[in-house]
């Protein structure tokens, strides 16, 4: 499946489209619901949105409105852990957003700085937990807001995986100690299987069929949103600078971006198609025109 990139749609706009699509699933007032087949993970979205919203005031107003009304669905521990690995520009923008949410709600989100002006829009709807795209929030409603739920989320979205506590902690955004404790409890309950691999324990899901029957079948697209947003951010950033860069520099920067994003491409099982020769900017443009464009329209394209 390929998606035609709408004429003159900038990479920054594609990035915004993905964010809008995800927020619309959560209940933010939006134009279209393009991502109903995607499982939405709210914390990576909240961390990145304030930076994107510097280009889209409506996104800022509507997402603030939603967060102030529905902050109880959000894990502040995950927010804190995700923020640890963000660029300063992301953290700066998030800090004001979080302060505004804290000022107008009972939330106590981390890294809050200076609150911004807030005018309620009252257009946001609560998340409809019965929707396929809300499976992760639905699981929180079932099992509680904890690392335990995020561990189960991981195994549902990575069928057949056997992973260590370290890998799991990185993937779910909780601390290693927390994840280790919860894995041990889930193993005792017979939900996770464990086996030693070299000098560490490797966990896998032992009752997948029962879990799926209980929480509901996940939607078709189960992306790692942290990896996805790192890719969109780095790509949009370079595309924005591209007109000011000499061709030789642009090619080097494109190669660096592709290299740096290697682990994220792997986590999403996505490849940026290599082309003949060393024209890395052409590789990245091809990725934008196909994969990124498809993502912006709610289609999963590898």
């Amino acid at each position, binding site marked *: 499946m390929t998606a035609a990139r709408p004429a003159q749609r900038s990479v920054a706009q594609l990035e915004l489209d993905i964010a809008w699509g995800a927020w619309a699933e959560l209940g933010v007032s939006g134009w279209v619901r393009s991502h109903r087949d995607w499982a939405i993970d709210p914390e990576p979205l909240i961390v990145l949105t304030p930076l994107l919203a510097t280009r889209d005031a409506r996104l800022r107003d509507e997402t603030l409105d939603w967060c102030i009304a529905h902050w109880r669905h959000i894990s502040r521990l995950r927010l804190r852990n995700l923020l640890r690995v963000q660029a300063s520009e992301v953290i700066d923008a998030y800090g004001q957003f979080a302060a505004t949410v804290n000022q107008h709600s009972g939330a106590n989100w981390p890294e809050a700085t200076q609150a911004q002006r807030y005018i309620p829009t009252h257009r946001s709807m609560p998340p409809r937990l019965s929707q396929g795209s809300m499976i992760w929030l639905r699981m929180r409603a079932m099992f509680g807001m904890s690392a335990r739920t995020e561990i189960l989320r991981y195994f549902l979205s990575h069928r057949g995986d056997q992973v260590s506590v370290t890998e799991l902690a990185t993937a779910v955004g909780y601390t290693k100690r927390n994840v280790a404790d919860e894995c041990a409890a889930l193993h005792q309950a017979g939900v996770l299987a464990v086996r030693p691999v070299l000098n560490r324990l490797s966990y896998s899901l032992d009752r997948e069929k029962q879990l799926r029957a209980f929480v509901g079948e996940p939607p078709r697209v189960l992306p790692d949103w942290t990896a996805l947003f790192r890719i969109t951010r780095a790509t949009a950033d370079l595309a924005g600078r591209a007109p*000011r860069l*000499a061709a*030789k*520099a*642009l*090619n*080097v*920067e494109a*190669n660096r971006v592709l*290299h740096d994003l290697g682990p994220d491409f792997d986590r999403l099982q996505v490849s940026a198609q290599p082309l003949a020769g060393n024209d890395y900017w052409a590789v990245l443009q091809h990725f934008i025109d196909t994969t990124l464009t498809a993502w912006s329209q709610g289609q999963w394209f590898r």
Partner: protein
Amino acid sequence: MLGRTELEEALETLGAVLEGRGLSHGLLVAGGSSLLLLGLISRPTADLDVIGLAEHGTYVKADQLPPTLTRAVSDVAATLELAPTWLNNGPAPLMDLGLPEGFEGRVECRRYGTLEVHIPAREDMVCFKLYAAVDQGPGSKHFQDLQEMRATPTELSAAAVWCRSQDPSSAFESELRAAVADLTSLPRPRGDDGDGG
């Protein structure tokens, strides 16, 4: 290995990358790559030797290259498929020797974007090359470079004076005399009958 075309391409790319990142650096280079840039030799070279950093109108020994430069060098290497050390500060201790008198005034500065490459003049390169040729013998690339540069007796005599100031030992002096004798006794290309180049 880097030929002159590849070396120019790498420097142009590095300069463009630095400019795009809002960075600028000035590098004092030496070695075979400098001769290649000046068109004095044609043999490919493994790397570009940085001996100093141009800072506030003078040169300081390149004990360490700035991290921002190292990162850009590495990124260029990855893109152009060069060795990661294609630009390095290995020969920086050369600065400890003390530069020939009037060195700074003779340096040729070339700009590649926001990268400045400061190349010693021919006569100063003869000094460095002669010192290295004495150290490493007549079979060395330095000896060959002096031959290819067609270093004249006058240039070699001046260079020998500088070399003696770096190592006044009698053992070095005898090897220096032998090296200069070898170089001046070599047959010169037709039409090349004196100082020049």
